[in-house]
């Protein structure tokens, strides 16, 4: 990664992009920015998941010594946050923008602030602050230190230096940025209701795209989903994860862990998991995810160690 950042905002005139007027322009501007700064621009992982951190480009790539710089949008599913399209801020499906930079560059904060400028946030007009917020995911055997970034008191980004993943020290440490896209867009566009966001500059709103989806999916999440089938899916994902682990394909195993995690969230939304059972289900998901990460790290370790003699798994 070069230390000279490229600011694609300067090229706005050419592309006609205006992040302050369109959700998709904001995303495309972030893509331009991070692409110009050496990231591979990935597409969303094609599975249902609760957070961008679950994407293998984040979790699995945080392991090992190889440099890795990537940016992508990840749709997130949070079944219990569904509000049938009636709450201006809460959605059961929304977007996160993830950037992962490994090793964490010395100027990572400046890079991040430049990305905010690119989408139209002037730090002399808005009060940008880094407020302590550490991150921990027992499910992934992972933790890190960092901040939530405030813009005039609103949390717009989670900024984390990964210290451990899958129970292993991150060597080297990766910096992870997670932008809450809808929130940022609402701020930049000056809109109080997520469904009023302009999706593009041609009259399509966020509501046009997603409102009906939120209504139907909220209903399905809370009321319709066949719980016996979900329990069955959970069991099958768990079994398949074990099968993949036994056959030394940990990436496939990890996918099944993601699946189990989401099915568990659906069961929660259906209200069929008691308080006592909850801890046990979470433990099972944690087991799958951790085992997959561990297996992946162990499988890759000889190759990594050969390329990076100064590196070791533990």
């Amino acid at each position: 990664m070069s230390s000279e950042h490229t600011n694609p905002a300067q090229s706005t005139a050419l592309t006609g992009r205006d992040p302050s007027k369109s959700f998709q322009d904001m995303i495309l501007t972030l893509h331009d920015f991070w692409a110009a700064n050496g990231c591979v621009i990935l597409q969303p992982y094609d599975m249902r998941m609760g957070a961008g951190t679950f994407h293998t480009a984040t979790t699995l790539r945080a392991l090992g010594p190889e440099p890795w710089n990537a940016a992508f949008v990840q749709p997130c599913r949070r079944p219990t946050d569904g509000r049938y399209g009636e709450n201006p801020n809460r959605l059961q499906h929304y977007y996160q923008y993830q950037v992962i930079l490994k090793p964490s560059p010395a100027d990572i904060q400046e890079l991040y602030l430049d990305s905010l400028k690119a989408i139209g946030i002037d730090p002399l007009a808005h009060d940008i602050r880094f407020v302590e917020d550490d991150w921990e995911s027992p499910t992934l055997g992972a933790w890190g230190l960092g901040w939530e970034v405030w813009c005039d008191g609103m949390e717009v980004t989670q900024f984390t230096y990964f210290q451990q993943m899958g129970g292993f020290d991150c060597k080297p440490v990766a910096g992870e940025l997670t932008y809450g896209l809808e929130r940022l867009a609402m701020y930049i566009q000056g809109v109080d209701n997520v469904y009023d966001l302009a999706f593009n500059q041609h009259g399509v709103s966020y509501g046009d795209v997603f409102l009906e989806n939120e209504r139907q999916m909220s209903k399905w999440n809370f009321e319709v989903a066949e719980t016996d089938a979900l329990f069955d899916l959970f069991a099958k994902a768990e079994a398949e994860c074990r099968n993949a682990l036994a056959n030394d394909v940990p990436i496939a195993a990890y996918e099944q862990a993601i699946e189990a995690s989401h099915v568990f969230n659906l069961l929660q939304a259906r209200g069929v998991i008691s308080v006592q059972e909850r801890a046990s289900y979470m433990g099972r998901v944690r087991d799958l995810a951790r085992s997959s990460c561990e297996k992946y790290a162990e499988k890759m370790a000889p190759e990594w160690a050969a390329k990076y003699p100064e590196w070791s798994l533990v």
Partner: protein
Amino acid sequence: MADFLLELRCEEIPARMQAGARNELEKLFRRELEAAGVAVGDLTVWSTPRRLALIAKGLPSETQAVREEAKGPPVGAPDQAVDGFCRKNGVERESLETRDVKGRATYFAVIEKPGQAVSDLLAAAIPVIIRDFSWPKSMRWGEASISSESTRWVRPLSGIIALLDGEIVPCVTDGLGCGRTTKGHRFHSNGEITIDGADDYAAKLRDAFVIVDHEARADIVREGARKAASEAGLALVEDEGLVIENAGLTEWPVPLLGRFDEAYLDVPPEVIQLTARVNQKYFVCEDAANDAGSLANAFVCTANIAANDPAVVVDGNRKVLAARLSDARFFWELDQKKTLAEHAKGLERITFHEKLGTVADKVDRVAKLASWLVFDAKEPNGDHNLTRQAAELCKADLVTEMVGEFPELQGLMGGYYAAKEGLPREVADAIRDHYKPVGQSDDVPTAPTTVAVSLADKLDNLLSFFKIDILPTGSKDPFALRRAALGYIRLVQANNLKLSIDTVVHAWRGNRDAALAEKLTAFLLDRLAVQLRDEGVRHDYIAASRDWGSQPDLRIDRVEARARALTSFLGSEDGANLLAGYKRAANILKKEEWNAAPDGLGEEDPLALAGKPEFDAAMGGAKDAGLSYTPEKAEKALIDALDIAAPKAADCVRLERFEDAMAALATLRAPIDAFFDEVTVNDDDPAKRTARLDLLARFTRAVGNVADFSRIEG
């Protein structure tokens, strides 16, 4: 003499860790320099979110040369021993000197330690300070973190300034070299700032929009927030914790006042204040003029920039607060859709402790105990039905949305919801206040219903955990049992309660359990001793008061009253002298192994006997009547004084009038002094000796009945 400046610049340090970091920096700097023989005077240590700075004025530029001598083996010792001595001291054998030690020629090594440049010592100390620095949480970062052993810091370390009298101290830590450049405010300053030394550091940073002195920033936040409020005709709700937190979040603090929609004022003010403070670090304001004391629809946020247009920043913050308050109002309204009794059913799903069942089980126990307190024990004398109702509902708010969001509002929200659904005021107040007293400055409840529920809640916590052998150990008290004990004590004190722990235990578990009662009482008395220490009541005075008769006193109010009376008595001249007389008498009896008790009382409990004829005769009867000789004057005077004082003191003790009991003892002071001055106890006449030892025994018993003076130290 030289001035030293150290700046450790890093990414944003959590506000809550900055005070500790300043102490740590000072401690390690002193440790390293003093170990190297450099005297360190006053230090200035500053912090901002992005830097720690230390200035040491008047350091020497060199340490003194030191000449040390080490005594070695005698001349003629085996070569091995001499060579070992040389190796240990780093000298050649030829350079050893020979001296005479008590007539033996002995080798000495002379070691010259030249003075060292302080700059070199600092260059060695800085990496050690960074390495040994203890943060509550620390991390690795960057390329170096490919090794687990890379430098750890609270957030990535980005630059070091180390200047001694303006000269760079050459040191390197993990690729970061020391220099003289730093950075100013993240947004108000561009590029690097060059520092000449300790003297221009703060001023140059100020020019770059960084106020490096954390106290100066705190002043700006405090004064600025007050001013913003008063300019709007409001009064700031002072909050020193917020002042310090905001000073720790900013390098250039700018307090700004904003307004929120008045409609949110329907939500309880505590909720608004907590939402603003915890989630957003905002101050809140009260109306200053006509409606003084009530919350105003205003907040003060602290920006870290001198914004182009402050109104834009304020408006952004207003929107965030509005969204938070909207959530709070949603919870407030949602929670009221159920009665507290309906909420309370949810407690069956919450585990109180794995060995102690659910919170619903706990509530049953508390309700039973609270009812017993007001109905059977009449301590306090309150309404039975109201108390029962309050106790049954006291934990219901734990399952409300609002308390789920803000656990610190437990109790308070229950009180609000109880009032909203029209429950009697006593019930709502008891639900609201039953956790009290929590902090030292917290009010202690006095309303009977509240007192009963509060006592029952605390007693149930204590008894439940004691029953399963969970007691606090050292600094570990995960179930806050010490706080519960102190709360119980303060309730007893404020309401003059005379509860005996054995009856409490009986009511709580349905049968007597002396062991549990004594365990709890001992724990309570330990807390009482800690509480009363500040008032000058010594722990040994409490020890002297902790038995009633020959049994542990299970009423802590009585122990306290007695210990307080002892404190004032022993603080008087009479008391101090009487104690000396008691100790002298006790020593004589011990030396003579005199434990005969001719009046037949022996080790029996005199209080149990009080009022019975044989007791009164023993305590007050004219013992000298039986003497086979004519007592000396001082002996007679002591006998007469005891005849009056002993029964009087015993009566007063029985009536729990401890001050009066001590006053009765005070009348013995002159007679006992005179007795020791004028009467020989160990008379050659065995009859006199026996009678006088019995008299001293009687004296110590009379004194000992008021308090156990043998437990008093010094």
